[in-house]
């Protein structure tokens, strides 16, 4: 496989990873925190409902996990496709 094909494969793997991550990003904030909050109203936590927790704390914790997961995955991809920094 030529370097150019490999670069393309690297980029599409990256795009796939970005898409999945952004879906989770939107789901925990706009989804659970705002739009889907009424549907989660039945799940109680500390005197309020799960949606309130996602809006004020849960989403932030998910964002953190997402960024570190992405950084770790990308560093592996960099090496697999031979595009890491020597």
């Amino acid at each position, binding site marked *: 496989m030529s370097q150019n094909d490999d*670069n393309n494969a*690297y*980029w599409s793997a*990256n795009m796939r990873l*970005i898409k999945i*991550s*952004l879906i989770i*990003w939107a789901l925990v*904030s*706009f989804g659970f*925190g*705002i*739009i889907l*909050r009424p549907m989660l109203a039945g799940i109680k*936590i*500390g*005197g*309020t*409902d799960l949606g*309130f*927790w996602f*809006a*004020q*704390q849960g*989403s*932030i*914790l998910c*964002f*953190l996990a*997402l*960024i*570190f997961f*992405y*950084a770790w995955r*990308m*560093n592996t991809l*960099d090496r697999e496709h*031979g*595009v*890491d*920094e*020597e």
Partner: protein
Amino acid sequence: MDQFTLNLLFVGASFALYIGIAIWARAGSTSEFYAAGRGVHPVTNGMATAADWMSAASFISMAGLIAFTGYDNSSFLMGWTGGYVLLALLLAPYLRKFGKFTVSEFIGDRFYSPTARLVAVICLLVASITYVIGQMQGVGIAFGRFLEIDAFWGLLLGSCVVFAYAVFGGMKGVTYTQVAQYCVLITAYTIPAVFISLQLTGNPIPALGLFGEHTASGESLLVKLDQIVTDLGFKEYTAAHGSTINMVLFTLSLMIGTAGLPHVIMRFFTVPKVSDARWSAGWTLVFIALLYLTAPAVGAMARLNISDLMWPNGTNGEAVSVEQIENDPEYAWMATWQKTGLLDWEDKNGDGKIQYYNDQNADLQAKAEANGWEGNELTKFNRDILVLANPEIANLPGWVIGLVAAGGLAAALSTAAGLLLAISSAVSHDLLKGQLTPNMSEKNELLAARLSMAAAIVVAVLLGLNPPGFAAQTVALAFGLAAASIFPALMMGIFSTRINNSGAVAGMLAGLVVTLLYIFLHKGWFFVPGTNSFTDADPLLGPIKSTSFGAIGALVNFTVAYFVSKATKETPQEIKDLVESVRIPRGSGAAIEDH
């Protein structure tokens, strides 16, 4: 030692520390001035970025806005953290690979057009100056309180301090100073929160205390809070009251804006490698989250404490008496804050008591009439004082109050300095050296950088005399502007080879102009009161407030850029190759000085 001396001592000691570090790490070359020689470790860089990022808006203003609104202002929490996901995934690693100093350099090169670079500089200046206005508001309040003077004089004094401080060093001096500022501000934010959480819930971690049990009543803290605020005629704390569409757009604007603000993006140019840029975004968010997970607890607990102080015998008992406010040491904070002009009360019905309730609520009219109340008597409570007054409200020891004053100033100063740096590099590096006078010497470039900082402060103070909202709301407008102009151009520059020079220029201009127009129509032209045609209570477009318009502006930007690019000449091959190379980490070198 009295409180005034203690405050001076804490603020003075923290200032001595920052200035000491700034002198020790003074920038010698232009490269050090802008990008700290690219030798900053991701964790260090993360901490400095967090200090740079968490401004007066996060520290002083945000918890107050959450406290008095509740759930609806969760947008600030999600928006100002969620942007880092966009930054880490969509921008930071690629901009680091590109390897230049400023955001407008990237836009100028990628869209092979000096015009694009110029438009980027304009967008960046508009967003940054709006942002500085919000910081100045915070600085004014903090100085006003700890020197016990009017907030206006606090603002003037604060602007002099910010200027003196920012011209000291460039990025290098600022980076290490900001690490110190982060430590000061996070300690100052956390300590009072821990005390208050222990008092109210017995849990030493405020973030957990928020969802814990209110010890005094045995109920959940949030249930208790909901009950008290509704008793006083205010809206239920945990429920949604505003429009869902507006909340989504507002959150999105803050997120995109975060990823489009030049002073934050610039930070990712200073890490040694592309992979470090990814980690650095993560570390930044770790340090930011420490404050953001505590902030909602600070807000809710302060709201509870204020209600308790105003109604010491419960919401159905007697209100606090004027005599008690004037003599009881527990209420001494009210008199000190009254001096700043940001807090006030008035015994309207002359019964010697101060009734705090929502006099706009029709349901409370009967109760008010039966008890002879003639309107809410806690007539003024500026949201921005909440965090600074919080330790006093909770009756914490004097040193905690001094520490919080120092923390608030650290937050405002670090961000103001970072923004001034972004402004000065835009003017001296991109505008003067990049376009007007390419042969300028390094010495003159540094001089121009410092002069533009001074000019920026003057403009910010002038516009800041009529702030368009509380500090965090002013700052939110700056985010809307960055979201509508810078972020789409950067993203399209990396993820699409089709967007060409004309497309990018047209997109940025369209995004900036519609957003600025929408803001001025609602907040007044150049924020001058009375010149607005609409209000945020009844906005031009359905439920969309001016603070939420940034997301729409970004959409306009993307759309215009796409169609203009389609109608004009294709991107040349060498630019397509440039985009390809930016996408691959291999071969990232040191920064290239292209002038």
